[in-house]
């Protein structure tokens, strides 16, 4: 019972709705099962609420290994199929360095330095291409 309670507390990431966007804040060390649960929760919440964007704040995450990287990329691909866009916000520099060396560059995943920047990115009109990078104005 006690252990079950601990697992539930450790194993749940809150998905908050802010207007047209879902805000997910990852903190500390995630269990594999928690990451899988989150993946499912986000899809279900998008369909239920009809939001058009998801911001995943990973500024509190100390490491992203290939498992978590893959889950994040899958979340982005999933939300795209559900007519929403995902932006990964606040990756730590050491995490970025490590991911590149690991060989996991997560193409197709939009990123922003902060949650605010991610929300601004989502507020911009959708450009046809799926792959992010809309810093330049198209002519």
């Amino acid at each position, binding site marked *: 019972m006690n252990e079950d309670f601990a697992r539930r507390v450790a194993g749940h990431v809150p998905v908050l709705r802010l207007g047209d966007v879902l805000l997910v804040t990852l903190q500390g060390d995630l269990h594999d099962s928690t990451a899988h649960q989150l993946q499912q929760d986000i899809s279900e919440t998008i369909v239920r609420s009809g939001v058009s964007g998801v911001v995943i704040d990973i500024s509190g995450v100390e490491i992203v290994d290939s498992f978590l990287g893959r889950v994040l990329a899958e979340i982005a691909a999933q939300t795209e199929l559900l007519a929403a866009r995902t932006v990964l916000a606040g990756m730590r520099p*050491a995490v970025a360095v490590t991911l590149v060396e690991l060989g996991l560059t997560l193409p197709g995943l939009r990123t922003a330095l902060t949650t605010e920047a991610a929300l601004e990115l989502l507020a911009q009109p959708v450009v046809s291409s799926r792959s992010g990078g809309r810093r330049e104005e198209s002519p």
Partner: protein
Amino acid sequence: MHTAAGVEARLPIRSDMDLVWVRQHVRQAAALLGFGLVDQTKLVTAASELARNTLVHGGGGLMEASHVGSSGVDGLRLTFSDTGPGIADLDRALSDGYTSGDGLGMGLGGARRLVHDFHVESAPGKGTTVRVTSWVRRPPRAGGAV
């Protein structure tokens, strides 16, 4: 003196909960030995990849952490061992993008790039042992350059 106690450990790898303990221990040990933030992150990430291999492909096993020293430089050595099915083709397992079963393929090849020394022993039916070591890079001595 105080470092050995915080670095040396034998941790079981039997569930995804154990992966969390492995990562936490490696983080603490690396910090204790004086690794910088980026190197800590690389070590913890490598440990996470290797521990997951031990769990998923090796059917569970053990991580041993130890403090190694060579000519005044501190290092952290991590040994992951399992008694699982072993790896038939090591070269292939170490190549990028190789994946078996669950698609957790960055594991070996990726982890190798994150550490200084990488050694793997495996044979079909004999299990797998991966030993990795990284060294603390000391900053250059002050007083030299202008």
